[in-house]
């Protein structure tokens, strides 16, 4: 369902339902806050440079912003807008970690995870996008195929880690999350 520039998918509502049900404290709201801060990191430079947000999609995979930076702004400014998201996340993590409060430390942990995870050079994440732009700026002919390779490598490492966690520590949560994200990607690929 699309209202204005915001598109809400059923998967997003289900994700929120699952989190609402399982969350015992304020984790859900911390994650939401962290996501908003992260997107603000993308949005502010985009606005400053005169770019335009075309669509904000809330899906089962989280928040994604479609914009016209590539067409209108050029590589440098697009890169700035891409990396500012994780930078702002990590910045907020630093800020919250300096204050002496357990709950703020939790938010710091979430922001840090958010920032670092998004910096992984995988397609669909900020890191992958940034890598693609950098390679294109350097005149690489096929930046996307390079990103595909890094995506596969990172995916294999992450997958291995998740499997280890599930097998050794009986903690299948991350493995489930990974499979869920994979399923989403697959579906997107099919529909796109």
């Amino acid at each position: 369902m699309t209202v204005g520039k915001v598109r809400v998918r059923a998967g997003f509502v289900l994700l929120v339902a699952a989190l609402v049900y399982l969350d015992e404290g304020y984790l859900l709201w911390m994650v939401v806050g962290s996501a908003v801060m992260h997107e603000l990191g993308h949005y502010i430079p985009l606005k400053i440079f005169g770019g335009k947000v075309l669509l904000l999609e809330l899906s089962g995979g989280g928040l994604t912003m479609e914009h016209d930076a590539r067409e209108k702004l050029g590589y440098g400014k697009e890169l700035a807008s891409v990396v500012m998201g994780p930078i702002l996340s990590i910045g907020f993590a630093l800020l919250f970690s300096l204050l002496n409060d357990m709950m703020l430390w939790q938010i710091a942990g979430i922001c840090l995870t958010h920032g670092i995870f998004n910096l992984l050079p995988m397609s669909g994440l900020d890191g992958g996008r940034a890598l693609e732009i950098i390679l294109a700026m350097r005149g690489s002919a096929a930046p996307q195929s390079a990103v595909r390779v890094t995506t596969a490598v990172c995916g294999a490492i992450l997958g291995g880690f998740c499997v280890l966690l599930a097998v050794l520590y009986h903690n299948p949560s991350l493995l489930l999350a990974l499979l869920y994200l994979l399923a989403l990607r697959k579906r997107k690929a099919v529909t796109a």
Partner: protein
Amino acid sequence: MEEKKFPPRKVVLQLAVSLLILGGALVTRWFYPEETRAFIRRYISGGLDYTAVLSDMGESLRTFVMGVPYPDETVNSGQMTDNGPDTEHGGPGIPPEEIIPEPSPSVTPDDGQLPAGVGGVRVNGLGGLEMPVRLVNAAYFPAFEDGGDDTLPIPFGTVAPDKADFSLHELPFTVSQPANGAFSSGFGYRIHPIYGDWRFHFGYDIAGYTGADIRAFADGTVAAVGVSGSYGNYIILQHADGYVTLYAHCDSVSANEGRAVSAGDTIAKMGSTGVSTGPHLHFELRREESFLDPAPYLTTE
């Protein structure tokens, strides 16, 4: 208008169903016991406490940036010294085993002086008589379930240990319930659920389920976190004016030593570690050498 703009019925249907599920999640969340949720959480997390992991990450980041580990300004407010807890004065850092050798119930040669009771003395020194003892946990002692009056014979010569303080203190801070759950065993003598003999119980037990929140009783600092054979995972908080609280049998502890906590902060998860027959919080309120009866300050049913 919108119908025309968004013809895919499927999308609308998907959204409607997912919203319904969201509503269901909210309703079950508020109206259903937490046990199921805690079970699912435990199952998919393998018992890992994510909130603790996240706050540890934040704390490590602080250490990384500042170059020093956290405990600095707040730690010395209590009886902690730079060399660790002050063990001479019954400080909070004393390993629980050392301060609480559970006293032998029948042999306590004493002058017979009894502390003033609060809401009725539960234990006094007259042996052989039937004393009102508010102690028995129906779950531990099914036989007493219908007894109702909690009256049990106490062996001859039984006196409350010196360290037990039944008087009502005016606590210099506002307090918060350390856990939700059912009262299961109070301060006083009881037949130990595992050892089967009469022992003085220095704490107040609140039975719940594994993974339930354990919250700070009052503002303070984490004085110690540890594991002991009898207490299992425990955490000790130092409060104002020499008051100390201990939370034992935790499934996990989520606060580190030296950390400042506010009343009501979640500091641990309920469990059944150590000498315990089921998930519960063993809560102790101490001041210097003595152990207070926590009951007057709690509202657990």
